[in-house]
């Protein structure tokens, strides 16, 4: 029904790369967000200072600039480190900084900053009495964090995580600029070669639309489940 001029398999592979990239970045972002939020709420001046610097820095710089910096700069930094290690210690170390890794690292770092804010708000929404109760039971800090704070915080964090995920998904299109052959890149090459921009970009746009619409439904479902025990006051 839809003639993709032989680019169909490449587009499908590109779509898989986009999805892999999105999920790996999400995992990194969630991890960084938890660490960042814990640092901000830790009461330690140094830790919260570092976390604040991180979130401010990330929110001031465009994602594309960050990505170009990591991609081009990352390789130069690795080369410098590799030269240094070889000259001083004779250690043979080299590492190819490919676009996929730069993409995951950049998107993870950017959304880690947004997740930090989401989780910080969610942690603050946990009732202090719960934490006091955990202390009274002799829970260690780590135990309180894992058994009391995180499970109760997640419910409050879910809408924020959902919003961030929607934006993250669309940000993955940027990796085509640094040369990763995701579906946007394949579509661009096909559109240029065949001189048919609509023919290739509209299916890709539709895939993004399906992904965002599907996630929206999934997040709504998760949110309903997470709030099962909560009486909604209106």
């Amino acid at each position: 029904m839809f003639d993709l001029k032989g680019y169909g398999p490449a587009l499908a592979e590109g779509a898989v790369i986009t999805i892999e990239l999105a999920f790996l970045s999400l995992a990194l972002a969630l991890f960084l967000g938890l660490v960042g939020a814990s640092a901000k709420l830790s009461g330690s001046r140094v830790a919260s200072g570092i976390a604040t610097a991180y979130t401010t820095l990330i929110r001031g710089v465009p994602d594309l600039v960050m990505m170009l910096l990591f991609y081009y700069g990352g390789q130069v930094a690795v080369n410098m480190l590799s030269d240094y290690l070889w000259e001083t210690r004779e250690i043979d170390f080299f590492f190819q900084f490919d676009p996929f890794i730069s993409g995951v690292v950049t998107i993870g770092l950017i959304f880690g900053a947004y997740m930090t804010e989401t989780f910080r708000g969610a942690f603050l929404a946990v009732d202090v009495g719960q934490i006091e109760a955990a202390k009274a039971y002799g829970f260690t800090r780590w135990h309180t964090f894992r058994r009391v704070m995180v499970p109760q915080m997640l419910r409050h964090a879910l809408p924020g995580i959902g919003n961030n995920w929607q934006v993250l998904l669309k940000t993955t299109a940027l990796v085509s600029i640094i040369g990763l052959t995701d579906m946007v890149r394949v579509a661009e090459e096909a559109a240029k070669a065949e001189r048919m921009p609509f023919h290739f970009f509209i299916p890709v746009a539709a895939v993004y639309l399906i992904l965002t619409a599907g996630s929206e439904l999934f997040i709504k479902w998760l949110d309903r489940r997470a709030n099962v025990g909560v009486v909604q006051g209106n």
Partner: protein
Amino acid sequence: MPDFIVEWLDRNDIFTAMTLMEYWDGLVTTVHLVFLSLIIGLAVAVPLAILRTVKNPLISGPIWVYTYLFRGTPLLIQLYIIYYGVAQIPGIQETFWWEIFREPLYPALLAFTLNTAAYTTEIIRGAIVSTPHGEIEAAKAYGMNWLLRMRRIILPSAARRAVQAYSNEVIFMLHASAIASVVTIVDLTGAARNIYSRFYAPFDAFIFVALCYMVLTFILVFAFRKLENHLLRHQRPVSS
């Protein structure tokens, strides 16, 4: 430029007067592009948001479809579709439109405007829908018709509720404008990419431009905080 700056720059390999001028031109292009798309986007979004709250699904439906499509797909794809797509419209190359659209700036402006208008429409719609019902009832009781109610009561009240979310949209647009460099526009990011490829110095080129964007972002954040303080003056707690 003063002589001592020129002299200092002459001893610097990368940040010469010439590269700084390139960055400056890029800054002008970025500000120009973002400012125009935001202004036009806002002007389009206000009427769309009002129409989006109309009960008739034949009016609000198409607007919903428009905002859903533009918010659900990446701006990069929208830019590609418009940039590569206009040349393919049959017959356009013979009309005067081609003179305008062959420059990459205008397709980019169109894509950014459509994108920001979609987000802004939803922001303003949200603010309109959450107008306290009492305010509307009071306006009706005063005998105001729909237009007057909209102009005097609903829109000013909605503006206060929308300004916070809109400031985020403005900053998002500034950052998103970096992708203009992909369609050969030399904006701030485009200048950085040129300078990177000329000197093969990623840190100098991109960290400098990141700082430029940060300064722009903080100026915007500051300006919006002032605006919010001004609009929400009546909610400020009474100082002792």
